[in-house]
């Protein structure tokens, strides 16, 4: 076994000079979609290249260079996610439902959905609608925003998100539910019924 892996190592040469030209944009896109912050995405890409360079001798050629680099980037993103999960991600969410007492699970009075004015004219896609939606998503706690974006905007499979973020499916649906009730309220207050 040792012999085989030694052989493999000798055969695999990483073309590190070409990394940035070949993969920087792909990796940057990959990161930006997931962390929704261009500066942070650039940092993560840079960290990934550094880490890749340091552990280049561990590359066994079982996957392509790009796949290997992406797997490092994935770890970096999860690490970032863990960090926000332990601090900012825990930020208190404004609940839409009573969470104890005899009314548990019922709508909080001030959060009850109101009917919307001029619905048809308010749903025409335009730049204003887009930027209002973006600012409502940004107002979500970071973890909720992340999961909502991955599921709804990037349309990832549920299992994929769960695997990447290390959460269960039912966990994911609770997060999606909370994100969407918050978003609904935010859009109601700032777009539909101003």
């Amino acid at each position, binding site marked *: 076994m040792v012999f085989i892996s030694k052989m493999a190592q000798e055969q695999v040469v990483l073309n*590190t000079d070409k*990394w*940035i*030209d070949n993969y*920087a*944009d792909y990796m*940057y*896109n990959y990161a*930006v979609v997931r962390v929704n912050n*261009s500066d942070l995405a*650039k940092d993560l*890409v*840079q960290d990934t*290249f*550094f880490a890749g*360079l*340091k552990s280049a001798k561990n590359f066994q050629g079982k996957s392509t260079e790009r796949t290997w680099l992406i797997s490092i980037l994935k770890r970096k993103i999860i690490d970032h996610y863990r960090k926000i999960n332990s601090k900012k991600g825990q930020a208190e969410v404004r609940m*839409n*439902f009573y969470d104890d007492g005899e009314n*548990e*699970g*019922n*709508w909080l009075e001030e959060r*009850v*959905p109101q*009917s*919307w004015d001029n*619905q048809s004219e308010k*749903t025409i*896609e335009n730049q204003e*609608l*887009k930027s209002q*939606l973006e600012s409502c998503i940004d107002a979500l706690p970071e973890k909720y925003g992340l999961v909502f974006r991955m*599921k*709804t*905007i*990037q*349309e990832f499979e*549920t299992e994929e998100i769960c695997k990447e973020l290390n959460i269960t499916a039912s966990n994911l*649906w*609770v997060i*999606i*539910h909370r994100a*969407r*009730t918050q*978003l*609904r309220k935010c*859009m109601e207050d700032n777009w539909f019924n101003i």
Partner: protein
Amino acid sequence: MFKNFRITCDEATTICDKSQYGASTLLEKVKLNIHFLGCKICSLYTKQNNLLTKIYKGHAKACKETKVCMTKEEKEILKKELEKIKK
């Protein structure tokens, strides 16, 4: 028997959100529809939710079409940083 089918508004809207992604089970849908019989608020929530899903989908489409790139300058800086590490 019907006790098993009774759900709160919180649970009903969770199912509603789930079904926006085609992920709710038949039993959940049955529970949701029974809930609608007695709850106008959640019916309204569902109607608005369908509309929001359309908006989100439109937004998703627009986002996917935008590709972002790092600028040439940023790549050059990154290359230099990498060179430093190699030495």
